[in-house]
């Protein structure tokens, strides 16, 4: 399924994996987390690395009878009993506060906003004191506001020293904001900054379809083919040209 994948993720990096459906993003994540064995080659994870895994919001059973506090506590399975210790409660409070979820530990997960729901699972991963945070499609199925919240949160965690690896479909909303991107389609097509990877040649090889890239405020914006043929794009391009001419 996946071939020619050579990837080094160092401590403190913030890496996004992009690629079409079936490109092997999830398989790569599963290989890294150890739930899928590589047929050839190897995945080397520094001994004792703790992985904090944040599942897709869509895969969570929101009707399960569980409160925010219970979601966090379940990861600490080394302590067996249901009741949390005083030190655990203090840590829980710290993690929840850090993620803006203060005072919500007794709430059912369904009673939270979209952004809070995603953050609860980031909080659960953080509560396990991970060395690397792995997020599977953190912005799929969330609204624009929640997407902003998640992006801010991840940037914040990264600036505080967390190592983060995520997969995403969202090229403009999320991928273009990350420091390093890996374009995947059965193999690694490109690996580098968004300016190096979000370019038409790479994207065409990754997605198998021509994609246009515009620039806005120094950031690449990817437009798909259908959209590029529309009036909107022509208008935008015309506008950009006139802006450039005005500046000259």
């Amino acid at each position, binding site marked *: 399924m996946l071939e020619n994948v050579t990837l080094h993720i160092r401590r403190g990096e913030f890496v996004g994996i992009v690629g079409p459906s079936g490109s092997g993003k999830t398989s790569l994540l599963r290989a890294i*987390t*150890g*739930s899928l064995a590589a047929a050839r080659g190897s995945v080397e994870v520094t001994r004792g690395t703790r*992985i904090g*895994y944040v*599942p897709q919001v869509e*895969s*969570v*059973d929101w*009707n*399960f*009878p*569980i*409160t925010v506090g*219970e*979601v966090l*506590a*379940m*990861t*600490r*399975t080394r*302590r*067996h*009993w*249901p009741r949390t210790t005083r030190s655990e409660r203090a840590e829980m409070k710290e993690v929840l506060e850090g993620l803006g979820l203060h005072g919500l530990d007794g709430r*059912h997960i*369904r009673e939270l906003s979209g952004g809070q729901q995603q953050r609860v699972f980031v909080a659960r991963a953080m509560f*396990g004191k991970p060395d690397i945070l*792995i997020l599977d499609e953190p912005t799929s199925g969330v609204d624009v506001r929640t997407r902003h919240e998640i992006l801010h949160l991840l940037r914040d965690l990264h600036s505080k020293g967390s190592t983060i690896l995520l997969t995403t479909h969202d090229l403009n909303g999320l991928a273009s904001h990350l420091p390093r991107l890996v374009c995947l389609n059965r193999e690694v097509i490109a690996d580098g900054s968004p300016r190096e990877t979000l370019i038409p040649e790479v994207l065409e090889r990754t997605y198998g379809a021509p994609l246009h890239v515009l620039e806005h405020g120094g950031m690449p914006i990817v437009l798909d083919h259908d959209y590029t043929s529309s009036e909107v794009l022509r208008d935008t391009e015309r506008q950009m040209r006139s802006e450039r001419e005005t500046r000259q």
Partner: protein
Amino acid sequence: MTIALDLLAPYDFAFFQRGMVAATLAGALCGVLGVFVVLRGMSYIGHGLSHAVFGGAAASAVMSINFFVGAGIWGIISGVLIGRIARRKIIGADAAIGIVTTASFAGGIALLNRYGQARKSIEAVLFGSVLGVSWVDIAAILAVSLAVGAIVLFAYRAFLFATFDPQVAIVSGERVATIEVILMVMLSITILVTMRVIGTLLISALLVIPAATARMITNSFSRMLMLSPMIGAMCCLVGMNLSYHLDTSAGATIILVAAVVFTATYLLAGRRARLRVASLHHL
């Protein structure tokens, strides 16, 4: 005064006292495991497993092997197998489970017809027999209750993690497969020891109804785990007493009481509580 005396009348009989203790314990035990059965969407597995255990019980009766040993081994083997089939999500897992367990059930009936003192023992196992509850049965239910309670408490977080989010639990290094095997073994043994009180045909209801009722009342897993056995025990207690006064089968009366409690909770609870039950899978 007369009414009070009348209500206490059945307690004069030793068989009733034994039945009462056995049923209340069975209700609490099924209530605890029912939480996992309901939340994992395994109610059809509980149903199938009770049928499978029946086959084992019949075979051990015919071969003069101790009931607990014969049916226990058979129950555990089928429980683990069913768990595996269900886990792998092979196409038609439901059908495969259905075929295996009903075949075991049919085999049990055929065996009892051919070799056993058929009618009486079939009825006792199918519908439960309070009269037949011995102190050995009570000791067995008590031992299983204590073991299940200790396991669920001691591995509480791992059980919760594996039930709520198995994929992430695996990534986090939890032995989810082992937890599932333990759960199926506990379920098989529970069905085995409570079968004589409630009966094969109704045991799955006692696994589902108290837990589903508890789900309507609370949104917290730990509270559901406390409420469900309490509801189960209470339904058995009330059901047993009613069955004496109404002269009806204990198993059937217990399940009817549970159904009434469920319906009353459903009607009294708000719309949101009803939605919680609607969201349970395969109920």
